[in-house]
């Protein structure tokens, strides 16, 4: 079995190495990916279309908004699936009792975390809100925010973190994020455009169509941030406790 696997892996490796010779060299400005009309269109006209300086955010939330919306839905469904797979069902209780250790939250660790967590959360908000003008966005800010809750759970225990962010609220927040995203898309559809065509929001908001796209992107990123925050923490909480939501790490 292992020999067959080795042969397969080596064959694929040879194929890939052979194919790698045809790839452009490192940093070649004339590489197909860099010289394609799509990427040069994004670079040249993002500023005109949306007035957003960060092209990555513009492509993520505007040009490819449909894709990003369903990526967010994937994250949400994965979180739902993890919780529903782990919750309920038969349990093996003899074995995991052996690993339960009585412990007190450490004084130094908890106090350090007490100081660090607000900073992490403010940084997460900064990353989220400045996703247009600097590197950042909903996914990154959401992950940083979720990490702050995971840090609380690690330094105290899961109960403390769940008291601040219960699992039901996790899913409410996660669903709210998707509702924000899809709501902005639907709103622009009702205003006469296509789904997620933010420029039509300018009809109800006192801004130019470009600035409507700019601000709608912020709204969309906030929705993504909600979902990612909640799901990251829900993933950690249910995976670390085997779905029981107590006595975790």
């Amino acid at each position: 079995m292992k020999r067959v696997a080795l042969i397969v892996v080596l064959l694929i490796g040879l194929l890939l190495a052979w194919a790698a010779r045809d790839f452009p060299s490192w940093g070649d400005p004339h590489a197909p990916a860099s010289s394609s009309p799509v990427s040069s269109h994004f670079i040249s006209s993002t500023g005109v279309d949306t007035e957003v300086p960060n092209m990555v955010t513009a492509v993520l939330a505007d040009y490819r908004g449909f894709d990003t919306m369903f990526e967010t839905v994937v994250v949400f469904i994965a979180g739902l699936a993890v919780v529903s797979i782990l919750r309920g069902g038969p349990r093996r209780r003899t074995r995991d009792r052996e690993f339960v250790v009585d412990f007190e939250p450490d004084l130094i660790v908890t106090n350090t975390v007490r100081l660090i967590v607000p900073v992490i959360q403010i940084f997460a908000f900064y990353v989220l809100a400045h996703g247009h003008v600097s590197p950042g966005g909903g996914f990154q800010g959401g992950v940083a925010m979720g990490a702050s809750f995971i840090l609380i759970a690690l330094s105290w225990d899961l109960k403390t973190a769940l008291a601040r962010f219960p699992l039901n609220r996790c899913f409410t927040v996660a669903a709210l994020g998707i509702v924000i995203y899809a709501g902005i898309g639907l709103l622009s559809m009702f205003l006469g455009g296509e789904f997620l065509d933010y420029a039509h929001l300018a009809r109800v908001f006192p801004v130019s169509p470009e600035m409507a796209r700019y601000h709608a992107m912020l709204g969309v990123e906030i929705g993504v941030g909600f979902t990612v925050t909640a799901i990251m923490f829900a993933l950690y909480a249910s995976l670390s406790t085997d779905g029981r939501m107590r006595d975790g790490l």
Partner: protein
Amino acid sequence: MFEEGSIISQLLVERLNYFIYVVLLLIGLWAMIAKNNLIKKLIGMSIFQTAIILFYVSIGVKEGATIPIYLPEHDPHGSHASAEHNDTTASGPQVLEASKVSGYTNPLPHVLMLTAIVVGVATLGLALSICLRIYRGYGTVEEDDLLLKLEQEDSQNSGGFKKRRPRRRPSSAKAASGATRAASSEKSKSEKTGQGNRRSRSKSPAKKSQSSPASEGKKPARRRPRSKKPKEGDS
């Protein structure tokens, strides 16, 4: 060996980045195919994914270009470029000409990988939860043990797929069947009582299983397949 134009020089010097991704990808693939432990397979999957993410990001590299965020002079909002404030507000945002476009890297790979990373985390969490559930049901995440146990279970309910669906059927059928199974069914009975004790120590449905004989007949039988495992672990 490393002279210009030879295959090895092409691979290891000019295309070293691709070579690294290929190696990473092969490590991941090997782990996914050949490892027995499901968690190790997942680690392999993550390595595989990392290789692809690195590959995409390296495709976005452009020599002499900066990150895909407009420099102050191209910033659509003139206020960010303090020096030529009046200039930019007068003209407004303009389409960049081709020479300026080459000054920014391609944003597309970054966008694709940004979402791929987060979705990768979510799917990894899903896979881990399935592994946890498998461990809960079968007491192992080793693939060969798992296949063995699945085969045992299949041979026990040799009937059609009708019998296979509910978990409690095979064990009750087994307890009822011939003399070879008598000893094991006895064992399982003693286990059931032990399980009941353990149950009553934990809080919820112990009362129910003691009170009504019908539910007692059903419940422990449902617990059968996994009540087998702790015993094996103990012995």
